[in-house]
């Protein structure tokens, strides 16, 4: 069954974005090339998009672009792990994570490395959780593990980890990056971590060496 399509012109009118923005987002892979569908019409060649998908994507980009760089947003929609193998020494020297986080990870998982890209993301996330002071020890490790598991199972979008506290008890939630969570009003958000941002940071660090 064919998906409903929308023309480029309609898209720009509905969303209020300009041609320049659309082409910039295409360059940065925020909009997949295969969503640009070229068809011949009686007015000549026109470009169409899958209606629901493009409207949803443009709204998400509009929401995120004031708080994240385009490269970070690209990471959200194209989570692409890299083939790397990092020893604990390298993780520390490259400042991917602190000794504390590394030790906690190694002890908890009884895995001394070397670590894959996904594991390095988890270790860096663990480092940030510990530094935020929201939770520590084995709670922090489980939170990082949970985020790693969900990231691996959700293919189409990156995720964020949020830690809430209510009456001294902390609990972690992992949700899609651009998703909205409604919680009990007496629960307090203690911390929030974007896996897309951490992945982008890790890639930047690896690109520099």
């Amino acid at each position, binding site marked *: 069954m064919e998906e409903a399509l929308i023309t480029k*012109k309609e898209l720009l009118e509905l969303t*209020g*974005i*300009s*041609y*320049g923005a659309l*082409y910039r987002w295409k360059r940065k892979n925020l909009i997949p090339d295969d969503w640009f569908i070229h068809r011949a019409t009686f007015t*000549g*060649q026109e470009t169409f998009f899958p209606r629901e998908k493009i409207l949803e994507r443009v709204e998400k980009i509009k929401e995120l672009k004031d708080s994240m760089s385009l490269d970070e947003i690209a990471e959200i929609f194209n989570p692409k792990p890299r083939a790397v193998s990092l020893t604990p020494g390298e993780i520390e020297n490259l400042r991917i994570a602190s000794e504390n986080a590394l030790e906690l990870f190694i002890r908890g998982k009884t895995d001394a490395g070397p670590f894959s890209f996904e594991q390095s993301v988890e270790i860096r996330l663990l480092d940030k959780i510990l530094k935020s002071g929201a939770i520590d020890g084995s709670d922090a490790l489980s939170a990082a593990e949970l985020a790693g598991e969900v990231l691996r199972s959700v293919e189409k979008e990156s995720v964020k980890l949020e830690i809430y506290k209510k009456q001294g008890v902390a609990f972690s939630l992992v949700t899609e990056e651009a998703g909205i969570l409604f919680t009990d009003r007496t629960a307090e958000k203690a911390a929030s971590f974007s896996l897309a941002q951490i992945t982008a940071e890790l890639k930047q660090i690896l690109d520099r060496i």
Partner: protein
Amino acid sequence: MSNNRQDFNVSGRLALGPGEYGNLHFSGSGRLTGDITCTSISSSGALTSEGSIDCEEQIKCSGAFHCKGSVRTKALGCSGSTHIDGGLETGKLECSGSVKIDGSCSGESIETSGSLAVKGSLEGKSLDVSGSVKVGKSVKMEIIDTQGSVSIGGDCEAERFISAGRLDISGLLNAGEIKIRLSKADSRIADIGGERIEVRRAARSGIFDFNPYRGTLDAGSIEGDDIYLENTKARNVRGTRVYIGSRCEIDTVEYTGSFEKDADAVVKNLVKVGSGADIQ
């Protein structure tokens, strides 16, 4: 760092087998019979490689260099003629002679004052052309600065695309900033999309230039935020702020912000659309 690598200085004829080498110098005729890894290569004679080359430092060739495999190196400098049957992966490519690559090419910084021909695709950070560049498939760079002739068989993407010379792009030119100075010969770009798009006619070449205004750009759709065109023939021009300069012939202009045209520009249909784009 392996110190078991041997250096070779060849001034006659020599064939080297596959393996690991140090610094190789050829002024005669050299033949590599298999895949090699080496520290550096310099050749002023004729060098042929039957296999692939993985070079740690740089390859410098002022003679004839033919590699039947692929080349991976930190830098490649060619003032002679280089032909690579496979692909080229390099940090820096400096070509003042002729470089022909049958596969694809990826290079952080690519500079040519000679002729560069890539049958596959070209990608990297910066492309600086003062000679000619021909790419069979697509080009993806951060900065493209050319003063020569450019021919691209597929799409071309960059953050900045600045050119003076003849252009022939069969796909979409998608760049943030596009500054085109046309040549006296006609140029053709299938479609153009970007933020700031500027196309100007060739500069007058002296007092004996009796046809100073020739050289046009033929394009399908030109879409952007700020558009300034001269000597351009296009089907559609769509943008926020559009200026159609002299010697242009446009079928349809759609603008959301402002529109101006030169007296002798031809615009067959003019449409004002919407209330102006808010997000650029």
